[in-house]
């Protein structure tokens, strides 16, 4: 069985394919890895409130192998009111987990900085847990020029 495709049809087909591709990437953002599960395990299913957490990352990372990350959480850090844990996840890496930071009143402030790997353009999410169980979060999108997971 032979199938002939005229030039006009071929053009129409490829245009359709391009449209599908464009549509795929323009669709609603959804997590590609286990980031939702990790956040759920950390929060116990509760939804964190946006605010109190400030996540600092570059808008554009030229090298995904080493992207500077910093965060700070508003808190008096007293025995009565302090941040206990901060979870960092990346929703476009092969695995979402990046790091979990642990604080106590002895920390003085809930802030830290490190360098992370990002495989591609994606969202980085920070979720902070307070000693009273309340949860806060911040999200930053980072555009990655060269991915950080290549061999």
């Amino acid at each position: 069985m032979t199938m002939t495709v005229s030039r006009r049809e071929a053009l129409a087909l490829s245009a359709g394919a391009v449209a599908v591709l464009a549509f795929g990437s323009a669709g609603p953002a959804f997590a590609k890895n286990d980031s939702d599960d990790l956040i759920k395990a950390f929060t116990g299913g509760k939804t964190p409130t946006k605010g109190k957490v400030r996540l600092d990352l570059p808008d554009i990372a030229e090298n995904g192998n080493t992207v500077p990350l910093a965060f700070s959480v508003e808190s008096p850090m007293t025995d009565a009111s302090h941040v206990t844990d901060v979870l960092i996840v990346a929703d476009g890496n092969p695995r979402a987990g990046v790091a979990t930071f642990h604080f106590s009143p002895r920390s003085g402030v809930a802030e830290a900085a490190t360098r992370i790997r990002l495989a591609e353009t994606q969202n980085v999410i920070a979720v902070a847990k307070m000693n009273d169980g309340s949860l806060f979060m911040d999200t930053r999108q980072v555009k990655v020029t060269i991915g950080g997971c290549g061999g």
Partner: protein
Amino acid sequence: MSTPAPRPRIRLDKKDAKKGDLVEVKALVSHIMESGQRKDKDGNLIPRKIINKFTCEVNGKVVFACDLEPAVSANPYMQFKFRAEESGKVVLTWIDDDGSKIVGEDQITVS
């Protein structure tokens, strides 16, 4: 095992602090942080080998700790603060997947 344990680089922003001051710590250790996602040239997965835990103790009390995943860059860098309460040793510990530890020390004097 001929390679010696890497010597971490630790920097406190002050050696003498007043009680209640915040002391900033910057620490860098040389480590491959092999993610377990990469393949060698024959297509075999290179086994994961990372620092999976980092702690900072001042006078034996944990003031900061972090669980690391493969998404932390090679030669992991950590910057954080602690509240100076008493003079003593500042001990930083990095724990490898294989159980080995890299330990670095500094000193803080609190007046």
